[in-house]
């Protein structure tokens, strides 16, 4: 596939934004079960703002795009999601630095930095039944496919499968962070909204990648 790292970054960011906007109600409903139901709305409002301001962002490098996304999200989205997602994009962007082309190792390092940022900001870790429980294993799966020399499409598909599986696996858990945690044992048995969002976004990115590869290569074989 002939896309630049900048084009790929934009594709991924735009796919995440579209997913957040299209799933506003669905994500809100998930958060409404034991949380306060604002998750879908917060996310959508931030990414809507991003789409509005897209043309004013500094899109000179992958890192500058990600930092721009971070500022819009952190500034416009209230509370947990603004802080967490803003931190994640910021750390990923900072790790990318000024590079124009990113290697697979760079991408894995960026995701790892995003995770560390969220853990610190959220005072949270794996096992707290948050989006980390979907995001971290998905990131690890991606890294391991990369390490084994698999294609990007395969890596994305396997990562999204892992994320989706994790949303089911953590369903019976008790929420230890976020508003859902206030309900204690009543949070057992319901999906974590943030994790579902991660799974849906991963799936949508894999699809987008497949579509982009098809059109770029003029046929069905993705790199």
């Amino acid at each position, binding site marked *: 596939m002939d896309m630049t790292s900048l084009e790929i970054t934009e594709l991924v960011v735009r796919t995440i934004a579209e997913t957040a906007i299209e799933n506003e109600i669905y994500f*809100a409903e998930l958060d*409404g079960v*034991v*949380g*306060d*139901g*604002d998750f879908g*709305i*917060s996310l959508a*409002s931030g990414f809507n703002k991003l789409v509005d301001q897209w043309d004013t962002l500094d899109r000179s490098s992958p890192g500058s795009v990600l930092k721009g996304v971070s500022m819009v999200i*952190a*500034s*416009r*989205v*209230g*509370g*947990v*999601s*603004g*802080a*967490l997602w*803003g*931190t994640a994009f910021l750390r990923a962007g900072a790790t990318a630095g000024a590079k124009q082309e990113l290697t697979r190792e760079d991408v894995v390092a960026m995701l790892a930095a995003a995770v560390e940022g969220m853990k610190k*900001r*959220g*005072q949270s870790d794996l096992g*707290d039944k948050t989006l980390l429980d979907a995001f971290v294993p998905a990131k690890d799966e991606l890294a391991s496919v990369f390490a084994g020399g698999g294609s990007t499409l395969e890596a994305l598909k396997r990562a999204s499968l892992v994320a989706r599986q994790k949303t089911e696996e953590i369903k019976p858990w*008790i*929420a*230890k*962070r*976020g*508003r859902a*945690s*206030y*309900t*204690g044992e*009543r949070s057992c048995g319901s999906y974590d909204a943030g994790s579902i969002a991660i799974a849906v976004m991963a799936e949508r990115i894999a699809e987008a990648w497949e579509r982009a590869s098809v059109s770029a290569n003029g046929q069905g074989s993705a790199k």
Partner: protein
Amino acid sequence: MKKFVNDPKQFVPEMLKGIALANPGLVKYVPEFNLIMRTDSPSSNRVSIIQGSGSGHEPAHVMIVGKGMLDGACPGDVFAAPPMDYVVGASKLLNSPKGILHIVNNYSGDRMAFEMANEMLDADGVVVKTLFVDDDVAVQNSTWTVGRRGVAGNFFVIKAVGAAAEKGASLDELLALGQRVNANTRSMGVALSGCTPPAKGQPIFTLAEDEIEMGVGIHGEPGRARKKLVTANEMVDEMLAAILSDKKPTTGDERAEPIAKSGDEVALMVNGLGGTPISELYLVYGHAHQQLEKQGIKIWRSYVGEYCTSLEMAGLSITLSRVDDELKKLYLSPVDVPVRVF
């Protein structure tokens, strides 16, 4: 959903505009940061006190900005913590040489937004200290929560530090005072119905005709238990028992003494959550007052009305705040804020 609303997305800005129009000279509205601020702030003689919090809890906090209370409030949307740049923007506008006190209700969203903002303010040399409020006894502390929630008890914290700031107290003195009030204040709420954020258009939860949510949070977070409706007195008894038996964790494994014992003096607040009429609040007050006096606890002063609401939720919370001579003086010192009768 039936509400007085035009465009649901403009609900908060239109409310803030109304507050400013209704109180010219007293407060002004800065649309960029959802900010209601005192017209005479910042003052070089006074620490500036800022609350963020979500909207939907009015009169908290945008209607208690003014002399003797807050210098500014920059809420997020309904039930959403403010985004970082509201906090940064408000703090820069209200920056005082004596420093800034951020009062933050203990929710992850609020904590994180203020934390990020403070990192940026620090970098700009703005002096900020943060006071957390966590008076709700419904959520017992445990390893798996982020601590207790801040609810209607924040009124006492703000009243005390607001009065002290007016008298020129330093930032450190205010922080210590606020922490003391917070440590001496416990609340517990119950909901008879959910409520509907304008932008959401649907109730955040629904209770059956005979159900209540005991220990509800002010954003509609579920409480201790969904229960059968009982009489007012039985609900009051359960809430008082929860408050009086509570031993709030302090440092490490230590726990505070119960909030009040025989001989102590307290302020007793019955706070409406928005949809419960003041007649019912007074009915509840009457029973709570008598139950406490039976236990030898002296009611120093009553606070009955709406202090920290959840839109039009039917329900109420009870707050006990232990008082001493210093606090009594602070509580009775004059204020001038939008929320008033006359």
